[in-house]
C-alpha cells in the first residue's frame, strides 16, 4: 500500500502541470468559475490542444494512436485538469464510450475509420440509448432498424443526448428483431448524424440550458456494415459501452467534486460562513465525503489494474457523488442567502451556484438513477434477490 506517485507517475504529473500553465490563457485561475456548458469553439480548440500535446486517449492502445498508459495516468490527468478548472473535453462520448466500444467490437476497417478522428477531436460523437418510453429500462428500446437491401432503415426517437446538436456520429441502440425476447432483439449501429432523416431538437433543462437533445430518426438509411457486432448483439455491445463509462468515471467524479468543494470553501470565506461553527461542520463533512470518494476510487482502480476488472467498490462512486454534490450545491446556495436567487451577471460568480444547484438535480437521474444503482448494489454486489 502506497499512495504516492511512482517516479514515472510523478514525472507525468509534473509535465502535465507545466503544460497546463502554458496551455491555458494567462490569469485563467483567477477568473470566477465558468457557468454552464462551454461554447463550441472554446471546447474544440481545447480538445485539439490536448491531442497535439499527447493528452488525448492516454489509456488507449498505441496501435490506435493512444498513449498506452495505465489507468493511473488518466486519473492523474483528471486530477490535474480539475485542479486548474480546465474546460471539459468536447469529445467525451467518443473518448470514453464510442472509442472503447469500437476497440472492443469493431472490425479492422471500423477501427481505422473512426478511432483516429475521435482522438484528434475532429469528429464528435453522441449517444442514442435512452428513449421517451425507456430510460432506465434500456432493453425496452423501441427505435427500429429494418434491413432493406444493403441498408438498415431506422425509425424512432432518442432523448438525453449530450452533444447531439454538434455531433458527427451517434452510437445507437436499435431493435432489429421485434419477435425476439427483449434483450436479444437489439443491435448497435454507428450512425452518421448528417444522414437525411436525422433531426436534432434541443431539450431545455430546469437550468434553462439546452444541454441535452432529442434526436428523431425518420427513414434514416444506414449502411449494413455500420454495425458493431452482429444483429442481436446490441445488449452485449451496449454493456461494453456502459462498463467503460463507469471505468474512469470515478476519477472524473472525484475531480468534479474536488472543484466543487474548493469553490464551496472559497464561497464560505467570502460570505463569512467560515466563522459559523454549524456551517464549518457541514463543509468539513463535504471535505470528508470528497476524500472518501477519492480513496474509494483509488481502491477500485488498484483492483482494476491488478485484475483487469473494476472492483465492486466502484459501483459506490456515482451513487455517493451525485447525492453529495446535491447537498453541497444546496449548502453553497444557502450561504449566499437572498443573493442565491440572482442568476446571470448580477448573481454571485455570475449565478454559478444557482446553475450548479439546479444542474445537480440531474445527477441522480443521468447515467443510472440512484434507484437503479441501489438495485445494482443489492443484486450484483450483495446478492439479494431481484426486486420488482
Amino acid at each position: 500500500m502506497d499512495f504516492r506517485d511512482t517516479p514515472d507517475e510523478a514525472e507525468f504529473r509534473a509535465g502535465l502541470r507545466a503544460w497546463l500553465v502554458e496551455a491555458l490563457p494567462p490569469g485563467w485561475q483567477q477568473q470566477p468559475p465558468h457557468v454552464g456548458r462551454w461554447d463550441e469553439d472554446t471546447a474544440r480548440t481545447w480538445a485539439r490542444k490536448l491531442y497535439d500535446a499527447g493528452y488525448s486517449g492516454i489509456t488507449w492502445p498505441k496501435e490506435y494512436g493512444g498513449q498506452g498508459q495505465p489507468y493511473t495516468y488518466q486519473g492523474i490527468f483528471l486530477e490535474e485538469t480539475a485542479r486548474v478548472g480546465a474546460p471539459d473535453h468536447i469529445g467525451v462520448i467518443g473518448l470514453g464510450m464510442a472509442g472503447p466500444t469500437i476497440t472492443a467490437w469493431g472490425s479492422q476497417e471500423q477501427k481505422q475509420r473512426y478511432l483516429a478522428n475521435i482522438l484528434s477531436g475532429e469528429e464528435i460523437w453522441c449517444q442514442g440509448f435512452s428513449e421517451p418510453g425507456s430510460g432506465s429500462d434500456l432493453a425496452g428500446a423501441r427505435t427500429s432498424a429494418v434491413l432493406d437491401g444493403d441498408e438498415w432503415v431506422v425509425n424512432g426517437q432518442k432523448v438525453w443526448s449530450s452533444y447531439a446538436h454538434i455531433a458527427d456520429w451517434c452510437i445507437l441502440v436499435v431493435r432489429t428483431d421485434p419477435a425476439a425476447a427483449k434483450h436479444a432483439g437489439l443491435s448497435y449501429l454507428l450512425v452518421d448524424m448528417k444522414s437525411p432523416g436525422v433531426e436534432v431538437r434541443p431539450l431545455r433543462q430546469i437550468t434553462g440550458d439546452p444541454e441535452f437533445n432529442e434526436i428523431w430518426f425518420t427513414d434514416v438509411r444506414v449502411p449494413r456494415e455500420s454495425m458493431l457486432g452482429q444483429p442481436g448483439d446490441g445488449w452485449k455491445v451496449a454493456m461494453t459501452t456502459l462498463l467503460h463509462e463507469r471505468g474512469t468515471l470515478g476519477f472524473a467524479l472525484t475531480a468534479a467534486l474536488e472543484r466543487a468543494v474548493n469553490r464551496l470553501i472559497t464561497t464560505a470565506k467570502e460570505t463569512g460562513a467560515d466563522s459559523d461553527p454549524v456551517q464549518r461542520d457541514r463543509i468539513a463533512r463535504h471535505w470528508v465525503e470528497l476524500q472518501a470518494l477519492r480513496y474509494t476510487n483509488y481502491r477500485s482502480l488498484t483492483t482494476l489494474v491488478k485484475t483487469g476488472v473494476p472492483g465492486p467498490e466502484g459501483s459506490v462512486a456515482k451513487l455517493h457523488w451525485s447525492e453529495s454534490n446535491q447537498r453541497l450545491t444546496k449548502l453553497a446556495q444557502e450561504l449566499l442567502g437572498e443573493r442565491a436567487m440572482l442568476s446571470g451577471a448580477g448573481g454571485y460568480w455570475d449565478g454559478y451556484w444557482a446553475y450548479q444547484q439546479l444542474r445537480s438535480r440531474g445527477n441522480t437521474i443521468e447515467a443510472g438513477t440512484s434507484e437503479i444503482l441501489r438495485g445494482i448494489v443489492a443484486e450484483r454486489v450483495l446478492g439479494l434477490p431481484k426486486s420488482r
Partner: protein
Amino acid sequence: MDFAFSEEQQMLRASARDWLADRYPLDRVAAISDGDLGYDPDAWAELTKLGWLDESLELTDLAVLCEEAGYGLLPAPFVTTVALAAPAVGSAERPASVVHDGLAPDGAAVELLVAGARVVEASACTITAVDSVDRLRRYARVELPEADAGESVTSTPDAQLRAGALLACEAVGVTQRALDLTVAYVKQREQFGRVIGSYQAIAHRVSDVYVQLELARSLAYWAAWSVEAGDPQAEVAVAAARSAAGEAALFGCEAAIQSHGGIGFTWEHPLHRFYKRAQWISSWSGSATSQRAQIATALFGD
C-alpha cells in the same frame, strides 16, 4: 499509487477471520459478554502465540487485525492494548489500557495502565468494575497509587493518530459484520410470501449501508497508511476516518436492527453487541462532530 494490502496482509486477514470464527463463534461471545468478566482470560496467551502482539507488526498490519477484531468482537483487551496503550507502554506484550478521567476501558482486564505520563501496574491500583453499555469492553474505575508510582513515559506525537486510525478500522469491521448478518437474514426471512430482501425498502437501505461501509473503509485504510508513512495529511486523514467510520458503524448497526425487525431488538440476537461496540468507538476521545471541527480548522484556521 497502490491501494491494496500486500499478499502477507491478506493472508493475515484470512487467518484472523478463521481463527476468530473457530475460537469465538457468536454464541460463545454472547456467553462471555453475559458472564462475570466480559473477556476470555485465556485469549492473551493465544494472541501472543498467533503473533498479533509482535513488535514487528506495522500499523497497516494492525489495521487488518483491529478490523477483524471488530468483525468478530474478539473478547480480549487487544484493541485497547495495541491502539490506545502500546505507544506509551512501548510494547503490546502485556495487556494494557489508558485512564481517562479515572475510567479505563477494559480496565479490569489488563495488567498495565497508562495514566497521563505514567505507566503503572494494574496490581498497584484499586480497580472497580462499573456497569458498562459495551459489556465486552467494560469500564473500570481506577484509583492510582501515590503520585510518583510507576514509570514515567513521554507519549509519542503520533499516539493519538495511531489510536484514531486503528479504531476507525475496528469500526469498519463492526459495520461489515452488521452488513453480513443483515444480508444473510433478509435473504431467508419471508413475509407476505416473499423473502424480505426482494422488497426495495429493505434492499435499498442495505445498499446504503454497503456504500457507507466502503467509503469508511477507504478512509480508514488511508488513515492507517498516512500515519505509518508519516504523511503530512495524517492528522486530517485520521479525523476524516474516525468521523466517517464511527457514523457508518452506527448507521450500519441501526439499519441491521431495523431490517431484522423484532428479533434484532432482542438481547438473544448478537446485533446489539456490535451496536454497542459502534457506540463505544464513537464515544471514545472525541465525537464525529469534534473530528470534523479539527478538519474545519485545517481548512479555515481557528
